[in-house]
């Protein structure tokens, strides 16, 4: 979008004001904590807590994933900036119910450092903290280095699953194990056609030629595997999914995606890409999975992991086993994602 006509107040206050609005969107189910954190109003005593967070500007994630059977709280940074350690601490204190707190967030240098410092501050307050990094972007590193991958849209199914697991987890260990499994089983690949921008500067976050698609780009426009000519949905989708298939194939820690497997399929828009486009892409993806005999257990589709007016989309695939299916089947409710018990097409 070249003509940025954003409806805001002070561009330097957007993060604070949007978190206020988010609390209003929860209409009482969440409370505003400290400087810029969110927590569920009623977290049961003795619950192992789940904390998410990250930079703002990607709404409805990350802080919109606080909710019933989802995250207990979120530490919110400024636009595209990890929350400072003080905010991580205030959020940690708000969600801790004596059984410790699992930090579950996307792998970015800024987030890791700030959450780590926050965790050190929390340990000083005798709160047990464990961290599981979301590293789902297959375009950002080979399977052998998957712990250095960026965290992208896969966080939605991951937080859904781990939030469900947290309802019955008896210890931080147990929840950590579930989170690691959800992360291992979830992989994403994205493309972008045009950049978002930072409200405070109005400047696009990157440049891309009119006739090019950034294949494998991250959710802030981080470069992926390269640029390809602008093309059609039906040409692009197979290429994108191929990265996912090859990644499951090549990774020694997981089995290949093969006939009879069941998956959650999440088709995400980065903002400007319309639901119309997502649905057309979903249609092609469904054909490909059907050809391979892979069963879609449930579908998420929508602009849930955005970067302002960035145009682009991503696929996230979570391979399910019985344990993950059970977590999936739980209902959940939040500003970002809500589902009833069970799954579509049951």
């Amino acid at each position, binding site marked *: 979008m070249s003509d940025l006509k954003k409806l805001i107040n002070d561009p*330097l206050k957007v993060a604070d004001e949007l978190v206020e609005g988010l609390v209003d969107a929860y209409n009482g189910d969440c409370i505003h904590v400290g400087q810029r954190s969110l927590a569920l109003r009623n977290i049961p005593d003795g619950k192992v807590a789940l904390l998410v967070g990250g*930079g703002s500007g990607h709404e409805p994630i990350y802080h919109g994933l606080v909710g019933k059977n989802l995250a207990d709280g979120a530490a919110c*940074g*400024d*636009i*595209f*900036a*990890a*929350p*400072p*350690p*003080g*905010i991580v601490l205030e959020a940690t204190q708000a969600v801790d119910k004596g059984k410790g707190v699992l930090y579950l967030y996307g792998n*970015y*240098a*800024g987030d890791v*450092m*700030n959450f*780590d*410092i926050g965790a050190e501050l929390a340990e000083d307050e005798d709160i047990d903290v464990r961290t599981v990094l979301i590293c789902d972007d297959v*375009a*950002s*590193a080979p399977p052998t280095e998957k712990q*250095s991958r*960026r965290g992208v849209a896969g966080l939605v199914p991951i937080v859904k699953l781990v939030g469900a697991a947290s309802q019955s987890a008896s210890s931080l260990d147990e929840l950590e194990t579930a989170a690691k499994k959800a992360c291992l089983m979830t992989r994403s690949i994205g493309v972008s056609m045009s950049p978002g*921008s*930072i409200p*405070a*500067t109005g*400047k*696009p*976050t*990157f*440049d891309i030629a009119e006739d090019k698609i950034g294949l*494998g780009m*991250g959710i*802030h*426009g*981080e*470069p*992926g595997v390269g640029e390809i000519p602008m093309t059609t949905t039906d040409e692009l989708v197979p290429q994108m999914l191929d990265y996912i298939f090859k990644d499951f194939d090549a990774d020694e820690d997981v089995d290949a995606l093969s006939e009879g497997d069941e998956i959650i399929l999440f088709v995400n828009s980065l903002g400007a890409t319309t639901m119309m486009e997502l649905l057309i892409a979903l249609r092609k993806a469904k054909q490909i999975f059907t050809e391979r005999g892979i069963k879609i257990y449930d579908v998420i589709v929508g602009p849930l992991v955005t970067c302002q007016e960035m145009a682009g989309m991503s696929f996230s695939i979570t391979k399910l086993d019985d344990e993950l299916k059970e977590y999936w089947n739980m209902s959940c409710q939040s500003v970002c994602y809500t589902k009833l018990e069970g799954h579509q097409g049951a």
Partner: protein
Amino acid sequence: MAKEQLTPAETKTMMLKVADAIIEAEPILTDADRALGDGDHGVGMERGMNAVKEKLEASEYESVGKVFMDFGMAMMSSMGGASGAVFGTLFRAGGRSIKDSSTFGPQELANLITSGTESVMDRGGAKPGDKTMVDALDPAGTAANSATGQSLVDAMTATAAAGVAGRDASEAMIATMGRAKTLGEKSIGHPDAGAVSVAIMLNTMKDFITS
């Protein structure tokens, strides 16, 4: 008139000038981060420097180290992002290493930068050559350490020059850390945004000390 052995008050004045210089450089920092990262470095640093100014202006100092610790703490608690953590760590740890000093001379300069840089590398895992602010800090620290026997003016001048050279050298490096990582060879030709900030900071300190 060039300065030797800054008082805590002078040190505070110097660091307020650093804050102003960074605020003024916001567009430059924004563009540097747009080329390789997510474009928010300028805004983030500006946010940090406004917090720094508020904190420093409201405080009086007996220790020079405390000036830098407050500088770092204000950045760390207001900014977030990679730079909030790394710059916050740089100045908090660097300042702590000279918190008992009541004057800022060549030895304090050397301690500030070398301790700070070490803590940054511990915190974020970056090494020299990874195309981060460390590539401006590390040569600056080496220069400062070799210059502890010289006047503050000469030491600061050598340190700033080394930092600028480090920033320039980062242009030729391939990013292996943070947002720019996946750019690979395409990251060549742009300096690292954090290194640009470091160079501006050191140059502003030099201008204050030499004038």
